[in-house]
């Protein structure tokens, strides 16, 4: 890339042609404040907080979108700039509820930090505060539009990165708001519950639906056996909530904290990830053998499932009928574990801790009642668990390690890497390879399926068969990938799809960070844990084998199907329904 020289605050700086003034300044250690800009969603130039003075420009310019140029002279801290930024934020907070004490993002709010940084101490333009009803229609996310600063990050995330477009700007002027179509609740439209919007919202306007209350109640209820399962990605990120550096593994501390919170048994979703590989691997091989629908699309990511049901129902038969690890574990807890412990399913309160907001929705799907009652009762995100740990006064960073409980706490390294894009595929390949070739794998690490490219593909020789696989993460990528694919006619045999860019480690319920280097550090936690495991292949997980021996029979058995498999259905799109309704009204009117 060619370089240009420009002057920022009197210093000559070299920057890449095509970069912005903001990027150039930050590289030079000059931190220009921003609000609507987010590295993961890109600049929009909307909020005007990052304005700077550019010599010979008529007005101030937004540094997040202003391109560098040779000889540009920029001032980022003149009186004119400081005054403008302060006024802009003062105007913004003039209609902001400022109920910071009762806000989910209290202490971690970008607007709060900005107002503090800019030295705002009075409310100069105090105005009428909006009084809109919060949107509680979704089981995954909760929207309080009164707090919304209209930065547009969620819209860009949902529409451009995830390719869903469940929310958009509506109305103009002071009435402008971000809303699903026809001002429906977000739970009533095409939202796939991925929760990526909650991760980009700079304030408390979009947060996960809080279930900590229900979990506390269960823990306080002596009549309930409260069981918890933890997804792999949680251990790779929870430490960040307690000031630990990204990339710190906290598995042992996490288990200790859950025991301290009072859970009767702490299980590992990695166990059911291994179980998933057994079922899904079996399904894959039987489709391969019997000429069933291929490619097989993975089914672990509930946001992806809902996306496919809504936008690409033509691929529903390609999706594995296997439930996700959360739901397999839920079903096993309220059947196998209940039976072993002599408990009735309804007396077990099954909690899961997930990096994911869509899991909240998945747990409530009507299909997820294999035990006769709702298999998973409450789903906490990583962030919600951190809240509970803080509330309980647990000094998380200094906890001693602890081990998962038996029998559903044992896992292989294959189950661990489920939390990162490519991990499900790699875990499956490890088992499928050995089952097909009946030979042990020389090198367990399929590095060709790892990485963060939006779509990756690989071809693996298994004896005489060459299996062509693809890995897709981020729903925008998934949409583009599917658009180039015809259901019955595809070069691929097996495709892993995860709804969130980066996979579960960057899920909608994870600590708020979307930076690429954080993704890489979280992934390294899981890959390291995999390397440290004695057992690294799902089919070698003793506890899983025991489950089959004692209870399920063999993969794909009738009981396995009843408990561990599910069905999907096409979803009508809100817009279509609305249009139909309006057509009916129109016809009635005519």
């Amino acid at each position, binding site marked *: 890339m060619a370089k240009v020289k420009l002057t920022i605050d009197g210093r000559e700086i070299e920057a890449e042609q095509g970069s912005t003034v903001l990027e150039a300044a930050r590289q030079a250690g000059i931190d220009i404040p921003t609000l609507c800009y987010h590295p993961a969603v890109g600049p929009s*130039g909307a*909020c005007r*907080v990052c304005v700077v003075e550019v010599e010979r420009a008529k007005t101030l310019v937004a540094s997040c*979108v202003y391109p560098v140029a040779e000889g540009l002279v920029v001032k980022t801290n003149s009186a004119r700039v400081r005054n403008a930024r302060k006024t802009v934020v003062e*105007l913004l907070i003039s209609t902001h509820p400022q109920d910071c004490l009762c806000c989910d993002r209290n202490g971690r709010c970008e607007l709060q930090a900005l107002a503090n940084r800019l030295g705002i101490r009075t409310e100069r333009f105090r105005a009428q505060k909006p009084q809109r009803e919060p949107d509680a229609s979704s089981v995954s996310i909760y929207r309080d539009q009164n707090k919304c600063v*209209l930065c547009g990050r969620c819209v860009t995330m949902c529409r451009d990165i995830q390719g869903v477009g469940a929310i958009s*700007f509506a109305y*103009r002027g*002071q009435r402008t708001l971000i809303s699903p179509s026809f001002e429906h609740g977000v739970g009533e439209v095409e939202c796939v519950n991925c929760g990526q919007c909650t991760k980009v919202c700079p304030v408390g306007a979009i947060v996960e639906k809080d279930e900590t209350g229900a979990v506390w109640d269960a823990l306080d209820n002596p009549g309930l056996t409260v069981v918890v399962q933890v997804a792999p990605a949680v251990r790779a990120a929870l430490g960040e909530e307690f000031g630990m550096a990204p990339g710190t593994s906290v598995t042992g501390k996490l288990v200790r904290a859950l025991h301290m919170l009072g859970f009767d048994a702490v299980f590992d979703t990695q166990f059911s990830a291994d179980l998933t590989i057994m079922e899904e691997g079996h399904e894959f091989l039987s489709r391969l053998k019997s000429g069933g629908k291929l490619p097989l699309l993975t089914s672990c990511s509930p946001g992806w499932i809902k996306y496919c049901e809504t936008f690409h129902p033509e691929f529903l038969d390609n999706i594995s009928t296997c439930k996700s690890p959360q739901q397999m574990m839920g079903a096993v807890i309220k059947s196998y574990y209940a039976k072993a412990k002599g408990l009735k399913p309804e007396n077990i309160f099954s909690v899961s801790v997930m990096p994911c907001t869509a899991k909240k929705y998945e747990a409530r799907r009507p299909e997820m009642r294999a035990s006769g009652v709702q298999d998973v009762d409450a789903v906490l995100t990583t962030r919600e668990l951190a809240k509970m740990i803080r509330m309980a006064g647990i000094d998380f960073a200094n906890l001693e390690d602890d081990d998962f409980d038996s029998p559903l706490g044992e896992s292989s390294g294959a189950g661990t890497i489920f939390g990162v894009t490519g991990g499900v595929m790699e875990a499956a390949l490890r088992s499928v390879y050995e089952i097909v070739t009946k030979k042990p794998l020389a090198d367990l690490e399929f590095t060709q399926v790892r990485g963060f490219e939006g779509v990756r593909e690989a071809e693996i020789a298994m004896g005489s068969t060459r299996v062509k696989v693809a890995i897709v993460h981020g729903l925008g990528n998934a949409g583009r990938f599917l658009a180039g694919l015809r259901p019955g006619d595809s070069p691929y045999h097996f495709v892993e799809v995860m709804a969130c860019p980066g996979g579960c480690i960057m899920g909608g319920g994870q600590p708020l960070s979307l930076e690429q280097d954080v993704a890489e550090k979280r992934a390294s936690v899981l890959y390291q844990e995999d390397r440290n495991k004695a057992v690294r292949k799902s089919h070698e997980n003793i506890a899983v084998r025991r489950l089959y021996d004692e209870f399920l029979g063999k993969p794909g058995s009738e009981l396995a199907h009843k408990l561990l498999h599910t069905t999907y259905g096409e979803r009508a799109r809100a817009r279509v329904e609305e249009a139909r309704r309006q057509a009916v009204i129109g016809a009635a009117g005519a």
Partner: protein
Amino acid sequence: MGVLYRAHVLVCGGAGCVSSGCRAVQEALKSELAKQGLDKEIKVVETGCMGSCDLGPVMVVYPEGVFYRKVRPEDARDIVQEHLLKGRPVERLLYHTSQREIIQQMEDIDFFAKQRKVVLRNCGIIDPEDITEYIARDGYEALARVLTEMTPEEVIDVVKKSGLRGRGGAGFPTGLKWEFCAKATGRPKYVVCNADEGDPGAFMDRSVLEGDPHSVIEAMAIAGRAIGSNQGFVYVRAEYPLAIQRLKHAIAQAYDYGLLGKDIFGTGFDFDLEIRVGAGAFVCGEETALLASIEGKRGMPRPRPPFPANEGLWGKPTLINNVETYANIPPIILNGWEWFAGIGTEKSKGTKVFALAGKIANTGLVEVPMGTTLREIVYDIGGGILGGKKFKAAQTGGPSGGCIPAEHLDTPMEYDTLVKLGAMMGSGGLIVMDEGTCMVDIAKFFLQFTQDESCGKCIPCREGTRAMLDILTRITEGRGREGDIELLEHLGTTIKDTALCGLGQTAPNPVLSTIRYFRHEYEAHIREKRCPAGVCAALVHYEILQDKCKRCGLCRRSCPVDAIEETTEAELVAAGVGAAGADMQAAGASQGAISQPASSPKRKPLFINQERCIKCGVCMRECRFQAINRC
């Protein structure tokens, strides 16, 4: 060709005249002509806007050029039988000056005589639905010349040298824009016409589309040739159904004649033109928002650079000009840049169309050379202020512009002088205000408009205009505070400096310019809680002048809220009120008696209960003795 007619009756079919009933007049004329057997001799033509909208429905009878105004269907008989049969113009329908002088010929009426029509050259003269009439007036000759005799570089050179600047508001040199676009590397390229005219009161673009749609079509094809584009889009707001209909019709005719489509004039040049209808958002007049809207997205502006000339529609180089700008192009090509550059002033060439509105005698559309003074427009063409009142200010540039006060009446109307005065040319809306206009109220009106129309994207515009509106509202409601004017100035300059697009950057102009020229009015509202123009309802009150009041009770009966009451003598004394107080006291307060005006000896004096009064002004209008005062 068809029949030759001995006379033509041109009936204005602009939207203004359509609303005042010109279609019924046309029908009446046609049936009367048929009845008299004249329908083969005399042709009735519906033209575009003639400009004199407040006189509508208007018409001109040629060959004499007799101008009739406010014609009703029942006048058709006289026009046909008297004028068209017997050659005697119908006097009662002729134009009267304010001195009651009757003028028969259109060209002798000041409103028309003092204009110079380039953009509106065909409006009101040709039938906009008949392409042959446009062609008869040299239509498509410019395109032919461009395609057969000129290189694209030569075309751009002519436009550059003509000095034509964008008529949509900011006045960017048109030729330069064309050149940028011609040099842009992306393919394909697009030509876009901005017909999203949104300034309150401005309707020149609508009139051109309604009255002379081919001039825009021809110009866009010329632009396509010049920059290397084969596809054009006209973005028209949905509120202009007649313009859309006529443009659609004109485009279809142009295709039929081979003037659009493939291989135009056999030169191998292709140009397609489509209409895109906007949903009527003011912000879609901003070019990046307009392009987003054409792409089917929400009309929200985006930061520039990149400019549309490099990355416009679907990321491709896009030339975007406004209707009036395009309408100038064919005559520039035909008459040469020297001709065009000879009109106007040094830095503002050509003519400008203004939409006259407000407290002016002749409202409507006028076209004058750049540099014509405001005084000439208001007094010579506009006929001065209504009701002989005093001129106070004129707002140019609509909600993005500013006001020009009486002391600058001799300002030449051109881009740069207007900006220096804190106003701007804008699209050419000219709203005239008289002494009865409150400048704080006017500023509030425009700010309400921009606040309603803000796209909501950037904070300075969305929240800043609202904060300014809040302050203006409290000032006009008598709750203004010391420091409010300074706060408005601070907000205004910050919004101008930080807003994302032109809408926000110009939104404070009406406030800043009224503060600049009428600061004392703001001060009177804030410090004395007084509205000098008597407009702000919260700051005026009505009172009955007891010395003039005949106690007839008319006001009392007309008051919608029963705020006018009889008052007992004791209350009267206690209140110490009354213009009649002097003789009241003289008559002897000791006796508790009040001298009664002779006219109604038995009636008690009337007073306005200020608590109850809603300041509607009905009492003042009803009173026959000027006994009610507003102050």
